[in-house]
């Protein structure tokens, strides 16, 4: 099994690692016993993602997909961010080994969860 250079780059130099205090949206997905967990923090103004931070426990593929997906949603409208699929994330990384495709779902799900959290807060 071999990772693309892009995966290795995002794994070794992940973008947007960290936390946002009092985030507008927060999502946490995964299960430590399965070997993966991701949390994502969003700061949203006027339905636009102004800032995003993440933390991930998992393999190189999990960390790289987390990293690149934060780049992909930064500056986007919430509705656009919801359209980011795990396939698009994998493609942006120049592909993932087949047995690692499942890790890319983690990022997609975490983004969705954070946006749902944001929408729920907003509607309350």
């Amino acid at each position, binding site marked *: 099994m071999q990772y693309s250079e892009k995966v290795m780059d995002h794994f070794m130099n992940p973008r947007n690692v960290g936390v946002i205090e009092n985030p507008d949206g927060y999502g946490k997905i995964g299960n430590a016993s399965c*070997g993966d967990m991701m949390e994502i923090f969003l700061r949203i103004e006027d339905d636009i993602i102004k800032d995003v931070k993440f*933390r991930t426990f998992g393999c190189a593929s999990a960390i790289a997909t987390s990293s690149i997906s934060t780049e992909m949603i930064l500056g986007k409208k919430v509705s656009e961010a919801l359209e980011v699929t795990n396939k698009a994330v994998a493609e942006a990384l120049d592909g993932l080994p087949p047995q690692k495709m499942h890790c890319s779902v983690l990022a997609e799900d975490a983004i969705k969860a954070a946006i749902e959290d944001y929408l729920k807060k907003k509607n309350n």
Partner: protein
Amino acid sequence: MKVYLDNNATTKLCKEAFEAMVPYLTEYYGNSHSMHRFGQETGKALREARETIANLLKIEADELIFTASGTEANNIGIRGVVRAFERRGKHIIVSEIEHPSVRNTAKDLEKLGYEVTFLKVDKNGLVDLEQLKKSIRKDTVLISVMHANNEVGTIQPLKEIGQIAKGHRILFHVDAVQTVGKLKFSPKDYNIDLMSFSAHKFYGPKGVGALYIKKGTRMAKFITGGGQEKGLRPGTSNVAAIVGMAKALEVAFKNIKEEYKKEKELRDYFEEKIIEKIPEIVINSKEVDRLPGTSSVTFKYLEGESILLSLDFKGIAVSSGSACSSEDLHASHVLLGMGIEEEFAHGTIRFSIGRYNTKEEIDYVINELPPIIERLRMMSPLWNEFKNN
């Protein structure tokens, strides 16, 4: 710097073995079972290699068959006796932490109508002798327990197990792939009936292993073909590799005690330093007799593949017990069998020190490891949860 700390996976072929092999890869190529001179040249080499290994292991040359790997030796040994002893009974006992070549063989035997008891191990990976005794039945024909575990290095009490087996007239198979060439012993020391080993674990070539079969042990054939290796492992003999195996074992035995000491010192030094420098780690099986060069370290709140690749980026080669770096996405059954929680099994890394490692290399690892762990933990939600509680 490049530091190879994956010597339990495979080792570098030693120069002596390579040089011993070269003539059999160039000049001497006859089939060792042919009657003509081309065959006699290689036939003689085959005989001598068998004698060399037999002498080192204090067995008879006649008690040794060459195989293509440790895996094959395990299959031929286990499947060969259970089939030969089918009429006496169809129950076998294997430990919970065997290598897949024993474990999956036992599982396949279950499908084929045999019954298997998987022996539990304690938190250090030691089998429970009381459970072993209780598991023995009238129809038990085989006990198979590995000598040292490849992931954590735990050395099993073979002497006691061998006595139990002998007392019940049950055959005793040992997967000694991790110990032959590292520890000095003979299968005769432990009442072993069948013992598997593999050259590439002791600086011999890949693609060759052997099975010790105690004289008089009834065996059915597993792989069928011509008459080579008593008909138990047919196929044109791989003389070059066998010669390399014998030479490698000879070299390994020459300094076996010094080598043991050196590896243990490096390993102990390594562990002492990283315990000092890195919080929240566990050294597995530390309390029991282990392989001298093996260090299994659980880095809590981390996933192994990410550690492995980060180390690799620095030129350091290790292996991981994480599901994420395994083919079937299951966490190591060895670590789980020892009662390590799944979450922590994921974060377990095996450092295996070998003959060619130096103190300088270990120092390099000791320096590179802490910042890697810190960086990854900063990213880990689990670590941050832990820190905040």
